[in-house]
Structures are given as C-alpha cells and as structure tokens.
C-alpha cells in the first residue's frame, strides 16, 4: 500500500466535500435544525399531545376560560382545543384523524365522539371520563419522584438525532458517491492507474469518518450551548463510541458502494436499509414493550448498538467496560462490513 496515493485521494475527496458549500453547510445545519426544532416542540409549555374538537364555536381559536366544558378537563395538560361551527365539520376532521376527540360544548349530559381506530382517542376518552368523576379523597396510589436529575426528552433524543445524521451521512456519503463515480467513469479512470481498490476505499472511509467526527463535535458544541445537555459519563468514552459507530456505518456504506452503477437502485437500497434502521434503532422512540422479534431484529443494525452505548454513557454514567458488549459488536460489524466491501468491490460498470 502506498500512503502517498492514499493521502492524495483522501485530500481530493476532502477538497471536493469542503468546496461543495451547500452540502457542507447542510451537513451541520440539518442536525442542528432538527435538535432545535424538537427542543422547541418538546421543551416548551406549548407542546400538546392530544387535539380536542369543540362545537359549536365561532372560530377555530377557542378561549379555554369561556368554554362550557368540565373544568377538570380544561385543566388537564397536553390538550389543545380547536373550535368547529357544527358537528359535521368536527366529525369530518375526526374521521381523518386530524383531531383525536370531538366534544359538544354545553352542560351535561355531555356528548362526545371518538374514532375506534384511534389509540389517542381512547386515551382522551379515559381522561374525559375521569374529569367527570369527583376526585376520591384518598387515592389508592402514591406518587414517587425519580431519584437524581431527570432526563429531559431532548437529552434522550439528542444522541439519536446525531447518530441518525451520522448514519445518513455515512451511507449516502460513501454508498451513493462511489456508485455515482462508478457510473460516470471516474472509477474506471482511477482503475488504470497504480491506485489500488484498497487504497481508494480506505481513503473514502477515512474521509467520511473524519467528516462525521468533525460534524459531531461542531453540532454537539453548538447544541450544548443552547440546551446544556446533561452528560453523566465521560465525553471521551462518548467520543470513542460515536467513532466506533461511524466506523461501522461507513463500512456498511462501503458494502453498498462495492457494486452497482444505478443511482436509482442504490437510492432504493439505501432507503431500504436506512429507514428501518432509523425507526428500529430507538432514534425517535424506545422499543420498550415492543414484541421480542422486533427488538431482536433491531440488533442487526449498528445504529442500535451505538445508541444504546451512547445513552448508557450519557444518562447512566456508564464507562467503556459497561458498554463492552456494544463496543465488541460494533467492532465485529466494522470488520465484517470492511471485509465484505473489499471482497465485493469493483471498479467497473
């Protein structure tokens, strides 16, 4: 292997990326916008989970104080009230799941509608029913507080968004780019030089990993200044986990890049891999309580292991030894993907 050739192709790839200012800027801006957006949605008091239609109402905007509905229902959190002039208008919205619950304003007996197909409708119905019953003087239940500092949703979500951004960047930045280069003949031109496939794909991988870690540090620092994330464990451990994660994701990108000349087909394959990975690797929501087979299936994705380890370090003060299994799996996946990618790689169409 020649380090001169490797360095040269690495430099060329980095120049290409850093000079593409729109792609470069978007790489930083996108995760930042996502985190900021979710911070605003979930962090503020304005967040509402359930939408309640009320009729009759003169306008969509309703004044909660003036609404003639049970007081305890008005006082409940996470509800948003939307006015409709008549029942028909409200039912149309309910049918299309634009609202979760429709209530006729006025004194009892109250009339309400829900869609049997809507889980949220069921929850609001239970809340509404509870609001009609006078509170028991002594509940057969006791509220306990979580010990230690609470983990905000944004603290839980943040590593997920960063990891998801890494995944897209690794898969598309390597997989898609190399396939495009194969299609337009750049790889063929490189093939007839002494540059080896190993040198070429190593340069691609190093360039992408460098970019992923650079983006991680910049976005983390920027978001931390705004949201002051609570990291219980070591930043170095966290960095190592994200580094290993980016290695495995980039290596997976190399497997996808190893063959093929159709950008459309590669886009399909990339979507086929990235979408289930995004939904099943606990980026947005926990799989706690999900069927066992889904949890087992999610373990085939490197993103799952990276996020599990990162969240353990961030929220539970875990050290590298505590996340040893995840580190081991990520390392093995990297090795496996690299071997497969190198074995399958073809310069030609």
């Amino acid at each position: 292997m020649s380090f001169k050739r490797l360095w040269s192709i690495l430099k060329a790839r980095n120049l290409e990326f850093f000079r593409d200012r729109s792609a470069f800027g978007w790489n930083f801006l996108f995760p930042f916008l996502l985190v900021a957006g979710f911070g605003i949605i979930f962090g503020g008091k304005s967040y509402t989970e359930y939408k309640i239609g009320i009729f009759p109402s003169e306008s969509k905007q309703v004044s909660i104080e003036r609404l003639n509905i049970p007081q305890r229902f008005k006082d409940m959190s996470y509800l948003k009230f939307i006015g409709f002039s008549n029942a028909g208008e409200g039912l149309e919205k309910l049918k299309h799941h634009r609202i979760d619950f429709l209530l006729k304003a006025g004194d009892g007996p109250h009339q309400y509608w829900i869609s049997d197909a809507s889980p949220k409708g069921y929850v609001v119905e239970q809340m509404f029913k509870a609001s009609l019953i006078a509170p028991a003087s002594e509940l057969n239940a006791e509220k306990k507080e979580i010990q230690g500092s609470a983990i905000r949703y944004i603290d839980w979500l943040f590593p997920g968004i960063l990891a998801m951004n890494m995944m897209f960047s690794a898969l598309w930045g390597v997989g898609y780019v190399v396939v495009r280069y194969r299609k337009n003949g750049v790889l063929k031109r490189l093939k007839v030089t002494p540059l080896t496939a190993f040198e070429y794909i190593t340069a691609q991988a190093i360039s992408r990993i460098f970019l992923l870690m650079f983006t991680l540090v910049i976005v983390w620092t920027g978001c931390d200044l705004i949201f002051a994330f609570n990291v219980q464990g070591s930043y170095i451990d966290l960095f190592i986990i994200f580094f290993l994660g980016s290695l495995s994701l980039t290596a997976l990108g190399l497997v996808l890049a190893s063959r093929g000349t159709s950008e459309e087909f590669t886009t399909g394959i990339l979507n086929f891999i990235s979408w289930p990975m995004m939904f099943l690797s606990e980026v947005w929501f926990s799989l706690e309580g999900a069927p066992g087979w889904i949890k087992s299936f999610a373990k085939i994705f490197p993103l799952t292991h990276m996020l599990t380890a990162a969240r353990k370090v961030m929220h539970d003060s875990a050290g590298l030894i505590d996340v040893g299994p995840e580190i081991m799996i990520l390392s093995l996946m990297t090795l496996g993907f690299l071997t497969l990618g190198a074995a399958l790689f073809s310069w030609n169409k």
Partner: protein
Amino acid sequence: MEPILEVNNLVKQYDKVVAVDGISFALRQGVCFGLLGPNGAGKTTTIEVIEDVIRPTAGEVLYKGAPRRPSFREEVGIQFQSTALLNLLTVRETLETFQSFFTKTATVEELVRLCRLDEFLDQYNDKISGGQRQRFLLALALVNRPELLFLDEPSTGLDPQGRRNLWDLIQGIKAEGKTIILTTHYMEEAQYLCDEVAIMDYGKIIAQGTPAELIRQYSRGITVVLPRHRFALEADGFPLPVREIKDTIEIKTDDVNQCLKQLITHGVDLSDITIRSPNLETVFLNLTGRKLRE
C-alpha cells in the same frame, strides 16, 4: 526489434454477442497505430481489453514480450472516450493527484507546456471548454511519461480548430518516440497521424497496413468531378465511364492526364473541375459499406 505490444487471437464475448472476434496485431516501438471502424465494430472493446480494463474471453496480450504485470499501469497512458473527473478540483490539483499515483512523472510545468494548459490551469475540471478538456485529458494520460499511449477517439466533439490543435499535440508526442494506439471515426485524422491502421468491422480486422498501402490496395483510381451543365456530351459518347450523381458527373480514371486530354478534346469547359485522389475514407467506405450503422 521486439514489438512493444502483441495481441494474439483476442476474443471478447458478451452473452451471445462477440464484440472482438480473434484479432491479432503487433506494434513496433514509436509507431502510431490507428484502429478504425464503424460504430459497434469493437474498437473500444479491443482497446479496453489491451488496457486491462476488461478481461478477454480468450487470447493474449503481451507487453514487451511478456504478459502484462502490475508495472504495466506505470508505463501506459490512457485517454478514454468519455471520462468524468473528480468533482471540484482544479486542473492543476487533478494533475497533482494523478502524479501522486505514479513513480515516474512529468512535472506540471512540462504538461502545461506540452498540452497548452496554462490559460485554464486553475479552473475547476468541469468549468473548461470541450477543446480544453481534451487537451487536459491528454495531459492526464501523459502524467506518467508513458511509453505506450492509448487515445480513444481523442478529437470527438471538437471543432475543426480544436481538432487541428490536438493533432499538432499528438504529432509532438509522436516526435518524442512514444508508441500510440488511436481509435477514431475521422479518416482524415487517421491519415494525418497514423503510420499504420487496421480497419475493424464486426469484431474482426478486415484490412491492415499503412494508409498508403490500404489506399493502393482498396481504392484505386482518381475521381474527376464536373458540374452536369459543363458536360454537354451524352455519357456513352465519352470514352471513359461516366456516372451521374445529382447535379454532377463523376469520371473514374487511373490516368488523370489522359482523362483531362479527352475532356479538352471533347470541348468540355473545365472551369469548375474537381479532382479527388483516393483517401482512407474511400477505403473505409469501400470495405465497410455505406449503410448506416448504429
């Protein structure tokens, strides 16, 4: 002298299509060899098998008397028919990147001088004109001071000035003693640049030799062309065979002096006469036919 390149019974088959069908030739050091043929004749496949871009189905390629070794890539320069380059790099940066791949290289200054790159050296690869691009691709093919140079349709898409300019560059490279294999659609280009040509059709070489040999062998006779209105005679009233083509008449002859004498004797006005010597294009059309190929 041992040939620098030998191709023996080369075959390349794709499923049921035989793109290259048992061709053989050998090249001496310093020769410019032209591979001509209609679209789909197998020129590019042949050249890419020799370049080691694609594997042959059968046959062998010997470079300096032996099968190609990894060092082959160090010693050959290649210009493909169409090549995309690394995005967002300048011409200079691309040359430097390619320089780093090879052990023995020409300096950027040499390449700039040889291929006249100075006016666009610091522009991005994709921001240069067609003519500049062809000169740049030629410079990339020369970056490792190759002994054997492959040029696949180097002047396709260029305007007449650009083409002449590129021919001058290639003549300069020839003068340095490099061996060149060139494919082209332009017979004038082949006649101007090549010492030896092979005409391919349906994957086979159907004629090979110097341009002069091929013309002698496959396209004898000189064509005298006159506007129809200058030739007042009936065709059968003239001692040489006469063909009417649209508004002109064509007379084929091996002895142009005799033909002209006859025309003067018959009182034909020679004011708008055109005399066409046979050329490679005539040879090409005679051998491959005039039917459109796609």
